[in-house]
């Protein structure tokens, strides 16, 4: 809502010195979000005067038609001589009154005016357009042509009310009444402690039977309908400047007098009005729900197919308006136009004014259904004061009589569905309890009365809320009114004492640890958007029946390319990797932790549960069952160097082993020792892919995959060669966690070290050799480490040699050489038996 300060002063006697910023501050304190204060005409300096065009000479030979004019500006130029002005606009003729800015003046935007040579003439000033004066464009892009009654030489700064301040207020949904000058004025009056001149306090004639016939067949949708008629409007009547200017400052464009008046009254009182050309309405006006398939062309020229829930205004022929949202084109007020035969102006002479009150929800649904947001709908959705309808109709009638020379007809139609006043019972100290402040009953009552409530009672107050505040329905609503008017800034600051808490859960600590461990291992966290599309899975070479294809899809994605939510973290990370690479960072290690989303395919729609009680456990379970799985994952991607070359020696490229190690790093934080197996799984290189498994309740469970990406994938996604990745499921890892660690027993007896080298077939996984050695070595084995892998001609093709260091130690004695050797031999024997290993040299 844009509120011109000059207009606001009409209802509240603000201090003469109060600036827009002062008012802004006061209104913010009582809860109106005044976003900006626009200073109109800032820096504007005259002379800016009314002139009359005396002569027009068309200049030829330029790219566009140019006029050289003489303009009478009276004594404003000091000489009384005609002012010579070059002008590019064409929407005026000799004799027209125009706005002239003279040399020495400054227009908004620090536009200094001086005599200057142009198009071979000297222009002593300028004939102004609305834009140039900061009035907003009137849609014609031409200069302003004033009504003829203004005197030549009159100061146009005052005439056009060019200097003003406009408050722009973002009205919250509960404050519908502040979508009017009346509402904002009420808040301003309260904020300043000044009386309000309520513009809705008008003398309104009582309803009678002589008004325009109206039939409301849906009183739930339309609780009130006032119809008034004004006849004999003069087609040549124009919207006066002051009214035009108020509309412009409030952000609306002047159209024609009758329409401007309905808009003006809406801005003033908050009641949307509609004016029908009576000659085009056939028979009684009706209000009903549309029949499905009915059609209506609205004022914006769009033909709309109506829904059975749409509330419509009708006449004998069918719908003539979408109630409370937009009128129909077939009963539109006709703009005045010259009759081709007589040359006389013709236009709408008789109008029916509608001031109705429609159900907020119904209007909101219709506006949304037809994607049609109008000033009227915006107000009805937020609640309009039903008691203001007849005053608004009266105000429109008065203005039509005053400005358009019309005659108010005596008939007054008013259809009202009776509804009692709304009352709330609240204990007088309720606001005190909510705020934590002792306001006392007297203050509470006074503040509620300022809001417009009637208050009765002592300890228990019976509060009748004003008709313009449909948002006030609960005791806390009244508490808010008291507290905001007493000032949120005066609330004390106290700290409650929560019961002792338990700190973070194990799961929360795990998530933090995983992040720290990966960062500690050199990975940089990236937070990627979860939006993706199936083309990404195609690039990754993921099969059509892969569970990663079971994506959650959005109805309204930002991009049609990415309608799905991620089912894996890897693509997002690869995108970030590619972006970094493109920006010149080539050694990259990135990680992300977060949920992925997996649709099971049989989620039922989530029900709209009631809100007047807690849902049952079954109802909550059914809501949860309607949601996709959202397991939490961790993933890394790597490319380029894992270690850099430098004065210390060579660098080392990142490889599949780093990716798998990242998996182990994550798993260790969960207290899980991973089992690593050879695997073949998109998007990985078929020979360089590991399955990561963990024991959950004694069963091996797949928790992730790691390795080098398939060369086809790196090519398809324009990634660096040998890019590696790992992804692991944190929820599964959490289940595999073994609880508190038992401390190891440390033996102080000396260690016995034995090395063995075993030759096995290439196809034998090192992990199998290792587990065989461990098992064979028995209890004395303290640790075992693979320190070399060797292949070469001596071994023969298809063979590899694995060299292990075994460390033996007993808890209770120094091992003899024989004992250590025996343990080693046992280890080797098991490996030989299990893996076909041969002990080397």
């Amino acid at each position, binding site marked *: 809502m844009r509120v011109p300060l000059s207009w606001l002063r009409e209802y509240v006697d603000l201090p003469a010195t109060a600036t827009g910023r002062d008012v802004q501050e006061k209104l913010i304190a009582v809860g109106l979000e005044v976003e900006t204060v626009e200073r109109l005409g800032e820096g504007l300096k005259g002379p800016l005067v009314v002139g009359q065009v005396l002569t027009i000479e068309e200049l030829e030979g330029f790219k566009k038609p140019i006029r050289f004019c003489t303009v009478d500006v009276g004594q404003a130029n000091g000489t009384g001589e005609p002012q010579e002005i070059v002008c590019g606009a064409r929407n005026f003729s000799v004799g027209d009154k125009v706005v002239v800015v003279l040399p020495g003046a400054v227009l908004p935007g620090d536009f200094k005016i001086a005599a200057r040579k142009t198009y071979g003439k000297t222009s002593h000033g300028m004939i102004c357009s609305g834009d140039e004066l900061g009035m907003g464009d009137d849609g014609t892009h031409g200069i302003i042509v004033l009504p003829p009654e203004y005197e030549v030489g009159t100061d146009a700064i005052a005439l056009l009310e060019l200097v003003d301040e406009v408050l722009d207020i973002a009205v*919250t*949904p509960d404050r519908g009444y502040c979508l009017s000058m009346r509402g904002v004025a009420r808040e301003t009056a309260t904020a300043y402690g000044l009386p309000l001149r309520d513009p809705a306090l008008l003398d309104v004639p009582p309803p009678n039977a002589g008004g325009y016939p109206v039939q409301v067949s849906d009183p739930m949708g339309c609780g009130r309908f006032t119809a008034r008629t004004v006849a004999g409007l003069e087609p040549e009547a124009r919207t006066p400047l002051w009214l035009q200017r108020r509309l412009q400052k409030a952000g609306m464009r002047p159209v024609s007098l009758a329409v401007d008046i309905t808009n003006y009254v809406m801005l003033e009182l908050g009641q949307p009005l509609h004016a029908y050309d009576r000659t085009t309405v056939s028979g009684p006006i009706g209000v009903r729900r549309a029949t499905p398939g009915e059609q209506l062309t609205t004022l914006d020229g769009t033909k709309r197919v109506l829904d059975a829930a749409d509330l419509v205004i009708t006449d004998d022929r069918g719908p003539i308006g979408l109630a409370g949202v937009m009128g129909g084109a077939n009963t539109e007020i006709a703009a005045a136009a010259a009759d081709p035969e007589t040359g006389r102006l013709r236009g709408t002479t008789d109008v029916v004014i509608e001031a109705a009150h429609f159900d907020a929800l119904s209007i909101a649904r219709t506006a949304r259904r037809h994607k049609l947001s109008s000033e009227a709908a915006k107000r009805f959705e937020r609640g309009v004061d039903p008691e203001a309808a007849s005053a608004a109709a009266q105000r429109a009638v008065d203005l039509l009589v005053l400005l358009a020379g019309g005659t108010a007809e005596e008939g007054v139609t008013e259809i009202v569905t009776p509804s009692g006043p709304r009352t709330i019972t609240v204990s007088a100290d309720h606001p005190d309890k909510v705020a934590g402040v002792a306001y006392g009953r007297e203050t509470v009552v006074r503040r509620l009365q300022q809001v417009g409530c009637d208050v009765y009672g002592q300890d228990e107050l019976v509060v009748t809320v004003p008709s313009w505040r449909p948002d006030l329905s609960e005791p806390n609503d009244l508490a808010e009114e008291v507290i905001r008017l007493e000032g949120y800034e005066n609330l004390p600051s106290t700290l409650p004492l929560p019961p002792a808490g338990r700190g973070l859960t194990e799961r929360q600590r795990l998530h933090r640890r995983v992040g720290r461990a990966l960062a500690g291992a050199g990975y940089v966290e990236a937070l990627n958007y979860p939006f993706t599309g199936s083309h990404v899975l195609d690039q990754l070479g993921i099969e059509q029946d892969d569970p990663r294809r079971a994506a959650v899809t959005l109805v309204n994605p930002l991009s049609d390319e990415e309608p799905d939510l991620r089912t894996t973290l890897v693509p997002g990370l690869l995108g970030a990797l590619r972006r970094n690479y493109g920006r010149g960072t080539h050694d990259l290690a990135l990680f992300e932790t977060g949920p992925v989303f997996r649709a099971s395919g049989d989620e039922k729609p989530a029900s709209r549960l009631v809100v007047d009680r807690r849902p049952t456990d079954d109802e909550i379970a059914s809501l949860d069952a309607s949601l996709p799985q959202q397991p939490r994952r961790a993933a890394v991607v790597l490319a380029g160097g894992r270690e850099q070359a430098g004065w210390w020696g060579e660098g080392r490229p990142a490889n599949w082993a780093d990716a798998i190690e990242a998996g182990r790093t994550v798993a260790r934080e969960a207290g899980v020792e991973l089992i690593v197996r050879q695997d073949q799984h998109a998007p990985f290189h078929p020979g360089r892919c590991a399955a990561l498994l963990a024991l959950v309740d004694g069963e091996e469970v797949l928790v992730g995959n790691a390795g080098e990406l398939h060369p086809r994938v790196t090519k398809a996604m324009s990634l660096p060669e040998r890019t590696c990745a790992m992804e692991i499921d944190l929820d599964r890892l959490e289940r595999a966690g073994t609880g508190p660690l038992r401390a190891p027993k440390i033996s102080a007896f000396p260690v016995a070290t034995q090395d063995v080298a075993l030759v096995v077939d290439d196809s034998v996984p090192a992990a199998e050799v290792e587990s065989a050695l461990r098992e064979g070595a028995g209890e004395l084995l303290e640790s075992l480490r693979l320190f070399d892998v060797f292949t070469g001609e001596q071994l023969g093709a298809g063979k590899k040699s694995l060299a292990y260091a075994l460390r033996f130690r007993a808890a209770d004695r120094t091992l003899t050489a024989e004992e250590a050797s025996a343990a080693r031999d046992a280890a080797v024997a098991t490996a030989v038996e299990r893996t076909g290993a041969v002990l080397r040299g």
Partner: protein
Amino acid sequence: MSAPNKSYDPVEVEALKPEEIAARLDEALAAIAAADDLEALREVKVAHTGDRSPLALANREIGALPPHAKADAGKRVGQARGRVNQALKARQEELEAERDARVLVEEAVDVTLPYDRTPAGARHPLTTFMERVADVFVAMGYEVAEGPEVEAEWFNFDALNFVPDHPARQMQDTFFVQGNGTEGDESGVVLRTHTSPVQARTLVDREPPVYVVCPGRVYRTDELDATHSPVFHQIELLAVDEGLTMADLKGTLDHMVRALFGPDMKTRLRPNYFPFTEPSAEMDMVCYVCRGESVGNPDRPCRTCSSEGWIELGGCGMVNPKVLIACGVDPEKYSGFAFGFGIDRMLMFRHNVEDMRDMFEGDVRFTRPFGMEI
């Protein structure tokens, strides 16, 4: 020296004469002083303290003396040998120190050499900042609650008093999830538009008193630009207990901004509207960058607060009793307060992040300097 014993027939032993001993001593001391490295000193040591050194030989002669002369001569030789050993030791230390100094100089390195062998990793500042905010409340006894990002509309809207078709529901530009069945079927599922559904989940799950914070990721249909992102982060706070007031809310906010931004920070509440709180307020804090000094000071404009002096942090208020009812909490017995605010914006002004996009593009140059904690 004892007085000469006239009754004794002295045996003249040349080597034990005082002047002889003194001469040997001087020779030894001179040789020690002349030794200019440890090797030379070792030779000197052998020559002057070894078995065949003059003083050692002299010492052997003592046995040939008559008893009354032995003590005298022994004392003389002993003192001389003592001084030689002392001098040797001193010189030894001197030479070792010289050698050490020389070798350690030779071993010196340029410690200013860089060592960026394994580049450091880092956590994202949004992650660590959310943890930091959460920790402020955990220290006060609050617990951290969590909820799903893909959420039922009932939790995201209905339970929080967002009436269907009410304009408030349209204020939040929502991503809707497609239903399973035929096209157009409403799933009743959305990407959560705020962290507030966790309030409802918590109240449905737990008996009051409830004191929780819920940090997390949320979604609105905004295109990414310098100040907006379709994916952003919030932290939500909910306290439900007997007798909680707006003053408690104000105190909790004050504590939070002081813990995060410094002891001289202040908050301001302005009336506002949210369906799930009543009364509701917008919460501002003094501009972290200009501390309010840009207000009315055109020479020192502040981009962070647009020279308003205050920064909007988020919404708050007393939990609407309708929310308590929908979650099964008795509003006659309990009251509560809640607030929620955008972590991303807070991070932006706390760390002078000028473009929202920097936080979501995953550029390591942005994230790495933030390290493990902020």
